[in-house]
């Protein structure tokens, strides 16, 4: 995963973050599972990407992966294969808003 700068500061990490997002080999890796995994590893991020309790995505946050915008896809959507395999990042992006 690649987090925006403010969330990297909160989580006290730099660069990419690797998380285990599947329950086991062969199980699908979904957007929801990725978010569950990052929140479990960094509880400070709960409520910062999506509302508390696996709620909806915060309005000014976007999800990109493999040049696709997954922001409006339901959390049960599987992430692209290269992301699930750890070869491409799942990007959490703070959207541009303001002048």
């Amino acid at each position, binding site marked *: 995963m690649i987090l925006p700068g403010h969330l990297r500061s*909160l989580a006290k990490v730099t660069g990419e973050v690797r998380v285990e997002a599947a329950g086991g080999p062969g199980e699908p890796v979904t957007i929801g599972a990725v978010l569950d995994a990052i929140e479990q590893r960094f509880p*400070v991020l709960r409520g910062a990407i999506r509302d508390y309790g696996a709620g909806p995505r915060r309005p000014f946050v976007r999800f990109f992966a493999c040049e696709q915008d997954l922001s409006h896809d339901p959390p049960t959507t599987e992430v692209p294969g290269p992301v699930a395999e750890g070869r491409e990042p799942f990007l959490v992006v703070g959207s541009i*808003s303001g002048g």
Partner: protein
Amino acid sequence: MTGVRVLVGTRKGAFVLTADGTRHDWQVAGPFFPGWEIYHVSGSSVDPNRLWASQTSGWFGQQIQRSDDGGATWEPVGHEFAYTGDPGTHQFFDGTPRPWAFSRVWHLEPSPTDPDVVWAGVEDAALFRSSDAGASWQELPALREYKGSQWAPGAGGMCLHTIKLDPTTPDRMFVAISAAGAFRTDDGGQSWKPINNGLNSGHLPDQDAEIGHCVHRLALHPAKPSTLYMQKHWDVMRTDDAGDNWYEISGNLPTDFGFVVDVHAHEPDTVYVIPITSDEFHVPMDGKLRVYRSRTGGNEWEALTTGLPQSDCYVNVLRDAMAVDSLDECGLYFGTTGGQVYASADAGDSWAPIVRDLPPVLSVEVQTLR
């Protein structure tokens, strides 16, 4: 060593300003949490090394940070503010019902007796309390349940921005909400009563309305806690019976619109306000930044101008951006939307900027260190 620590929240981070008791030479630390809106930074009087900061963002929501070393280092603590039960709806600007939704913490009020206890005033307006040093937060829902479905936001949001604890009566607390009004509890928050009798608000059709008054700020002196001062949207007000009845003390102020009000640390009848032109023009009158002081508990006010800009000054001073220290000669502090933090080491007679170019200042608190 005697000194002061000024805690400044800004639109783009927090700053900690320190000086010895002379309050002449200042050290500036920060920004902490750069890029985040810091609505409030406050310190425990029981354990002065324990500080709290409300860190918030339109993108990434709310965080609460705690420092246990006087602001040198910080750690995030619990930041889930869940209303009790289904909060239902409140009124919106257009008169339609709007679902209650948490957006940010405006004010953090540490307990004067227990360093692990702190209250939080939030938007949409509600009062929360933590008794485990910030790990978790619980709402005191009886406040919101007092006709909350009829509350409506002010222009800055429907925020609970002021929390005042009565040091002589532990179960008594005062809060103020824009634009619901002021409320008091005498049983530790189990029940509340609106305390808005005597307020006149031009935006309300009924001047006797229990709620809906736009209270900007409350202040009290710990030695005289039944006397409160209020800067309302318009009018500076006073009560001598813990809010049961208010009367106007605007007196000779050039305008009685404003945001801040505070009380001298050692003189319960010495009050300070910073008049702002009007609700349509949120800047000082005539480009002159003037603090007004009353030594008579109101009505008779004198302008304090020495060291403050007296031409071409068009900043605002927001409701949580004034504080007093309790050194022998009371010090005063306020921050502006232009990024200046001014200090007076002589009860307001003269002023000097500590810093001039911070981001817009949202809040100022001060700790007196002995």
